[in-house]
């Protein structure tokens, strides 16, 4: 440890460069030379890159722990001695990237390419590189048969790099680079099999939905730099109070936009009380808009289910464990800004609860194994935001932590199942349909047991990871009450300034929604488990390409149907006569990550077992959220007595959900579910179609954008193309027609033209040019003759028809004066060096003076 400390001092912790650089190197090598290197070299490179990054992360984490420990100091709170730690960080500055003069009163704000590791980013870094390594290992086997093996791992390594930039960036712009980087990788990997059109469309959808969120993040950055004069974490932390200015000019005026008043015929728009929000609320909402895009919350969650088009390891790594939690990470990172606005906090909590509920309802009826997991991810992300939104940052982040394990494990398990199913069915869609699975625990016991543990964890079975993290969130949602931490100061400064406070019933309401979502979570997860692994295998009768095709032929007498297996069925021709292989367990590269993640899913909860007052995670993260929790929370009276009853509600949710699933799908073979679907066909279709939110967006948002696009296109076609483009083309064509006559290719014509031109030039110099400029000053006119080579001048200023002097002189100007309203004629004669003369008559007239009006006249 001393060696590490001496090699990498706290202020220049260049090990971060290794953590960041290895995945980037891997991405570069695989991306540029991967095709020629071959699969073995690509596999080696990619695993070494992420593995080295993981090892470096562990070393960095230990170094951070060392620094934190040495900063500990004892304090006595409530007569109990406790150890408090500073918010220690390890820094590494690459270089100054740019600076902006957009700070308060034009102050210059430097933006450095700076990275830091603190308690929060340290944990996140370990999760990303650790889970990332396991998923890379898994993917080397899962993707082994893919032609674009090298491209996949180049993207995957690039993703790890971008994610680390996002986590370790010490200011918002650097975070934003990572934020965009993971978005790009997500896009590339969703559309990895871009030959299939829906995959490419899904990638595009994810990218565009994220772009809407990124707009919010950018706006938040602008507002922050304007009000706080900083963009790095510590600067923002110390400047955040400026976001709560009470001065009217500092508020964000929403209606009328930008303040002011509506005048004239628009006066009816002027509200009685102008609507404005504090900058803190504006920043919070804008940041949260960014989070809804990246972390798939209402209203921007629609991209995540479609993102399942990507390879399953991608779904596990990007769309479950790491990238989608970036929004929660941002909320934790900027917690000191969010808590300044209870309205924003309430918005986050409500959105989170609503998303948790909505995601869970959709997951109840989906049949695609990855779709169920995708909606479950949306729902779990909702739980995380619920936790963050009620000010329980540690609880929210802890759910990120545990969710990374059990959801990655489930996705990888699902991948293992799909792998096995696909080997039998050779149909991308049917291989993922749980209606064709069943009984798989006989064939793939390792996958089954790890999946089972993860299902227990996500459903909240007591003592698993999900139990501790989810119950902590629900408990906090019930007891926490957000208030403005600076309410008293604001009140003192300006008594009339309205301070919003959430209603008292909000906490219990959020808790109730959360418990409902938890019941549904337990139900759909056990439904998934039972349908996939229990009972008998239902895949024997389907997916036999030749048989299906034959049946169809017999039934319809139609020769045009392709075999059900599609093109992939063709190269497995030899399987057709036999009953087909049984599903098989996956190779060790796929099962080892499953076992490790399953173990973590079972045990990681004890890192923050609030129920047993054993909370190392909470203690570890405490310094990070110190500013955010100070004064911002009012905990309800008698909270501690509620802890066990509220946990009881969580356990009850697990028991009800899982019990119901067992009753319906194991004891009664799915009959009640079928009956319910038949009894309420309209509702069933609606939920199966995901509440038709996609269709709603298509009808409203997409239609509006399309209409705008059509208008712009028709303007482009009629005005730009029709008038401007054609007119310029016409002018050029006409000029060309004229000039073409001269370009006849006969050299002699050119030579003659040259000679004539030269002669014209010569004549211009030989002939004299009498020119004159007139300047006036108080009725005196000065006539100045233009200069020329060897010119001499002769004037006739008195207009008697004869020159004033016989000889030409160098006198090149003459003065005349006249009364108002009259004019004079002056003749100028010029002689040049060749003795040629030129003559010009100039008439100067003075305008009549305006008549002065006497008073009283008129």
């Amino acid at each position: 440890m001393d060696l590490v400390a001496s090699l990498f001092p706290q202020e220049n912790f260049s090990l971060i460069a290794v953590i960041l650089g290895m995945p980037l190197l891997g991405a570069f090598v695989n991306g540029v030379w991967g095709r020629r290197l071959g699969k073995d070299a690509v596999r080696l490179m990619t695993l070494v890159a992420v593995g080295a990054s993981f090892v470096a992360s562990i070393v960095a984490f230990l170094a951070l722990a060392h620094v934190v420990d040495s900063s500990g100091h004892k304090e006595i709170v409530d007569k109990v001695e406790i150890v408090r730690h500073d918010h220690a960080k390890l820094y590494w500055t690459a270089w100054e990237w740019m600076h902006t003069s957009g700070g308060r009163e034009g102050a210059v704000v430097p933006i450095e390419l700076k990275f830091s590791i603190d308690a929060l980013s340290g944990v996140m870094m370990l999760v990303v590189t650790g889970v990332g390594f396991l998923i890379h290992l898994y993917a080397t086997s899962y993707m082994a048969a893919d032609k674009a093996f090298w491209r996949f791992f180049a993207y995957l390594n690039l993703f790890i790099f971008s994610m680390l930039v996002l986590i370790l960036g010490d200011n918002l712009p650097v975070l934003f680079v990572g934020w965009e980087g993971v978005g790009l990788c997500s896009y590339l990997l969703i559309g990895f099999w871009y030959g299939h059109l829906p995959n490419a469309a899904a990638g595009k959808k994810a990218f565009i939905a994220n772009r809407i969120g990124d707009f919010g993040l950018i706006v938040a950055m602008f507002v922050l730099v304007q009000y706080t004069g900083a963009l790095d974490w510590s600067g923002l932390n110390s400047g955040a109070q400026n976001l709560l200015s009470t001065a009217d000019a500092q508020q964000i005026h929403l209606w009328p936009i930008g303040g002011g008043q509506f005048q004239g015929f628009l006066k009816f728009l002027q509200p009685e009380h102008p609507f404005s929000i504090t900058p803190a609320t504006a920043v919070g909402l804008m940041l949260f808009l960014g989070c809804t895009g990246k972390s798939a919350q209402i209203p921007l969650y629609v991209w995540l289910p479609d993102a399942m088009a990507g390879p399953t390891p991608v779904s596990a790594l990007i769309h479950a464990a790491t990238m989608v939690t970036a929004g929660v990470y941002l909320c934790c990172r900027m917690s000191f800004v969010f808590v300044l606005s209870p309205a924003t906090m309430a918005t986050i909590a409500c959105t989170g609860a609503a998303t948790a509920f909505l995601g869970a309802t959709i997951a109840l009826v989906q049949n695609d194994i990855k779709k169920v997991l995708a909606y479950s991810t949306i729902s779990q992300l909702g739980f995380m935001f619920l936790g963050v939104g009620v000010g329980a940052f540690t609880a929210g982040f802890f759910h990120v932590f545990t969710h990374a394990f059990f959801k990655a494990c489930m996705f990888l398990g699902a991948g293992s199942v799909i792998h096995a199913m696909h080997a039998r069915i050779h149909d991308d869609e049917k291989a993922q349909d749980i209606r064709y699975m069943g009984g798989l625990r006989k064939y793939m016991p390792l996958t089954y047991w790890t999946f089972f543990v993860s299902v227990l964890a996500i459903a909240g079975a007591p003592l698993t990871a999900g139990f501790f993290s989810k119950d902590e969130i629900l408990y906090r949602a019930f007891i926490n009450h957000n208030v403005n931490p600076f309410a008293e100061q604001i009140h003192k400064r300006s008594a009339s300034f309205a301070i919003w406070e959430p209603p008292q019933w909000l906490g219990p309401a959020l808790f109730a929604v959360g418990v409902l979502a938890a019941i549904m979570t337990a139900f759909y997860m056990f439904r998934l488990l039972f349908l996939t692994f229990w009972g008998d295998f239902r895949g024997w009768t389907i997916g036999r390409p030749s048989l299906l095709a034959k049946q169809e032929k017999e039934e319809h007498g139609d020769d045009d149907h392709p075999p059900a297996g599609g093109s992939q069925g063709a190269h497995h021709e030899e399987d057709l006569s036999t009953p087909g292989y049984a599903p098989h367990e996956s190779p060790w590269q796929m099962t080892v990550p499953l076992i490790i993640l399953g173990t973590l899913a079972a045990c990681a909860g004890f890192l923050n077992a609030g129920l047993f007052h054993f909370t190392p995670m909470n203690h570890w993260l405490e310094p990070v959220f110190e500013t955010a929790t100070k004064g911002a929370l009012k905990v309800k009276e008698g909270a501690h007595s509620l802890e066990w009853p509220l946990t009881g509600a969580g356990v009850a949710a697990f028991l009800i959900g899982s019990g119901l699933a067992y009753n319906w799908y194991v004891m009664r073979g799915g009959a009640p579910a079928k009956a319910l679907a038949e009894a309420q066909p309209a509702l069933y279709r609606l939920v199966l179609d995901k509440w038709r939110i996609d269709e709603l967006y298509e009808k409203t948002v997409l239609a509006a954008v399309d209409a705008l696009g059509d208008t712009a296109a028709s303007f482009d076609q009629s005005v730009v193309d029709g008038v401007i483009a054609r007119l310029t083309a016409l002018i050029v064509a006409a000029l060309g027609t004229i000039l073409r006559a001269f370009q006849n290719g006969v050299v002699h014509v050119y030579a003659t033209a040259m000679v004539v031109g030269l002669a014209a030039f010569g004549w211009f110099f030989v002939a004299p040019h009498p020119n004159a400029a007139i300047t006036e000053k108080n009725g005196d006119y000065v006539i100045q003759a233009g200069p020329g080579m060897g010119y001499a001048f002769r004037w006739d200023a008195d207009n008697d028809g004869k020159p004033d002097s016989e000889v030409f002189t160098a006198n090149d100007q003459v003065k005349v004066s006249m009364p108002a309203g009259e004019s004079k004629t002056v003749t100028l004669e010029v002689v040049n060096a060749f003795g040629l003369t030129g003559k010009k008559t100039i008439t100067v007239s003075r305008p009549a003076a305006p008549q002065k009006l006497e008073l009283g006249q008129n």
Partner: protein
Amino acid sequence: MTGIANYVVLSGVLFAIGGIGFLVRRNVLVALMSIEIMLNAVNLLLVAFNRLHAGELTGQLFAFFIIAAEAAEVAVGLAIVLSLFRIKRTVRSDEADLLKN
């Protein structure tokens, strides 16, 4: 010593011969020679006027510059004539219509 006027007249005559030759002759080689005559008419004028300014060499220097430029120009011009001859088997300028149409 002859007066400056004689030189100016000689130069003018030479220039006119060169100019007319350039315009009327179709042989590119002759046209090149005509250009040389015109340039040398200018050289002659420069050197003659230089005599009027005792002790100064500007005019003569200019003449040398022009001779150097001429040499370069002739090198390029002859190269063009050569390649024209290779393509068209002629050195007549009215048949050099490769760029036409």
